[in-house]
């Protein structure tokens, strides 16, 4: 399984903190993202625009970053700390 986390406005709009996706056939963040778009019309609409930032195992990642079973993948809006 791959654990997926959402934060801040994205978490609120998706009404979801976290979910698990089967890891079969998933080798990149892009593939995890594409699977999320299939979850529901709400997910498809919310995640498509603007496209979120992402992290794999708590490190900043890109669409092409590799993922494997057991990884933690996070999607989040632009950060506003400081």
């Amino acid at each position, binding site marked *: 399984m791959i654990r997926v*986390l959402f*934060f*801040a*406005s994205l978490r*609120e709009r998706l009404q979801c903190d976290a979910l698990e996706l089967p890891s079969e056939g998933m080798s990149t963040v892009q593939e995890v993202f594409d699977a999320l778009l299939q979850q529901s019309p709400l997910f498809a609409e919310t995640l498509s625009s*603007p*496209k*979120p*930032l*992402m*992290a794999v195992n*708590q*490190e*900043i*990642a*890109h*669409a092409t970053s590799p993922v494997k079973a057991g990884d933690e993948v*996070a999607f*989040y*809006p*632009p*950060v*506003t*700390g*400081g």
Partner: protein
Amino acid sequence: MTFHKTIQVQTQDFDLQTEYQTLRTLSSGIGAIVQFVGLMRDINEGDEVSHLFLEHYPGMTEKSLDKIVEEARERWPLLGVRLIHRVGELTPSDQIVMVMVASAHRQAAFAACDFIMDYLKTRAPFWKKEQTNTGSRWVEAKDSDNQAADRW
């Protein structure tokens, strides 16, 4: 001397004086300390703000702050860095974040402190939600396009 580093993410307030004294007494080779403190303003985008809630990504927050400090340390000859970022509920005039950098010389301390704050603002996973008269809203990142630019 060895490099001194402390990074904390916490809900409670911090005492600048304690932080400063700890850093200052590390070494008599310290010639410059630059401190940045971010405070909560009572106004944003023209609206009065009564509360702020700071969400973060536990685990990744600490890792990303550590990475930022290590990058600064590689670029400048630093003797110590102390960094505290608060999360949770805040009210106007509250201290939000503190970055304190010690070096033998002024230029390194200034440059590193500024650099750490720049990177923190664009890379550390914190999000602010503010409460105004008309309801609550997530604060918009000023550079949201930049942040997402090379990710996809």
